[in-house]
């Protein structure tokens, strides 16, 4: 992969930190995000971990603006209005490629952003070099391997020159070599100053990539801590159990809304949840 610095073109208009205050979001009667408050600072790498259904993806989608919170406040630095199109990008768990070649997939993203044609060529070459896909530029995107498609998705996101990049389990369905390549890429992008917020189920990956860990459970952020501290000495019992690889599950009590959460091998006190 090439060593081209993508951020030299990044706009100076800083949109970070991103602040979330008491965010709630529900679909029907199911409350998927509960009272979320956190802050994402410039240039950091955040890993959101937690069991399935914890609300990790929802949190990313909400930050990215794909869904609107029911209540609470989400604010960007300088009260940024057009942040969605201008300064941020998202890579989805399964890469969605337009039925065009690799080059045109990136070109489309740039045309949406109204980048003049003459500027696009060098920008596309740049991101394809970074992601090691320059040789596949004219290949139909959907014929690339899943790992290559994911790298192309990252290239497309990078072409937008985001200040913040959301990644929803970008390596979930990739084999170890492809995962390694993506991780290298994430590190490189981060070193170039882009803020990374990614979700993952891979604790090893969270350790390798995350500077800051957010542990989520049933729509709440249970713990947010520096990666080293979090993995060494998690404060929350659920987080501790999750790191230990204990199976978490819950059951709704028949008499009310209270939820009793259990995990093997111990049962924790409800007040600690």
């Amino acid at each position: 992969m090439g060593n081209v610095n993508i951020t030299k073109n990044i706009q100076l208009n800083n949109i970070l930190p991103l602040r979330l205050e008491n965010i709630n979001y529900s679909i029907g009667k199911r409350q998927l995000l509960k009272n979320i408050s956190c802050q994402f600072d410039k240039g950091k790498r955040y890993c959101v971990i937690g069991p399935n259904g914890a609300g990790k993806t929802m949190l990313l989608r909400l930050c990215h603006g794909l869904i609107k919170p029911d209540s609470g406040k989400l604010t960007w630095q300088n009260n940024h209005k057009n942040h969605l199109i201008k300064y941020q990008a998202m890579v989805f768990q399964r890469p969605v490629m337009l039925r065009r070649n690799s080059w045109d997939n990136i070109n489309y993203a740039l045309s949406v952003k109204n980048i003049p044609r003459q500027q696009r060529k060098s920008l596309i070459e740049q991101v394809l070099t970074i992601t090691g896909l320059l040789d596949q530029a004219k290949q139909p995107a959907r014929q690339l391997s899943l790992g290559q498609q994911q790298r192309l998705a990252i290239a497309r996101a990078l072409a937008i020159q985001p200040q913040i990049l959301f990644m929803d389990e970008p390596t979930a369905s990739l084999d170890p070599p492809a995962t390694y390549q993506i991780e290298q890429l994430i590190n490189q992008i981060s070193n170039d100053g882009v803020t990374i917020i990614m979700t993952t189920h891979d604790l090893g990956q969270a350790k390798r990539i995350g500077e800051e860990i957010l542990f989520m459970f049933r729509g709440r952020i249970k713990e947010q801590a520096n990666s080293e501290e979090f993995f060494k000495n998690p404060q929350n019992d659920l987080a501790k159990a999750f790191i230990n690889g204990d199976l978490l599950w819950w059951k709704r009590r028949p008499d009310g809304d209270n939820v009793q959460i259990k995990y093997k091998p111990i049962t924790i006190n409800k007040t600690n949840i």
Partner: protein
Amino acid sequence: MDDIFQAVNMAFVLFLQLDADLFEIMILSLKVSLSALFIATRIAMPIGSAVAVYRFSGRKAVMISLNILMGLPPVVVGLFVYLMLSRNGPFGVFGLLFTPTAMIIAQVILITPIIAALTRQVTEELYNEYDEQLISLGASQFRRFTAVLFDARYKLLTAILAGFGRASAEVGAVMIVGGNIDHVTRVMTTSIAMEASKGELATAIGLGLILITMAAIINLLIYFIGDMAQKYGNI
């Protein structure tokens, strides 16, 4: 059995002779059907794609209407166009009744809903896949609409073929608005109907075989164009 052999024989004779009259009828058939197809495609594809992408009140009603209109009875459409274009009708001044233009108009009305409904189906499927990614890139609704329509172009050949099938096989409407006038509005289907009513079954079936061959050639042509484009395009 004899009738069928006679018919096949007649088809060959008609085809080999290829007299000026038959040639004229074949060309007019193609001209009317392909013109109608071209116009209907230009109208129907944006409609179908818009229904797939845009969310507006009454969207479901439009979808249901398109599906219902797919089964429009040609004779009724013919009658409607006849009333519109007849001397006393609102468009009577244009003097279009019993011209190929009237036949094209009738066919456009018949096949537009078919192409639109099929386009909606194809583009909606693609849009469900693209939706969030395109929004994430910051694409406006119009850009999403054009992206979906553009990327679905090869799959939409099926919709075009369905439209062509209906147009080339249609007889009820073109008979009413065209009148089957020799050297003016006589096309393959109206000729077949006329020959059959005259009792010239062999000629009718012979013409029918030629019509089927013509339709098959056009179908194959469109199929191969799509196939080649897909192979050498960037899908």
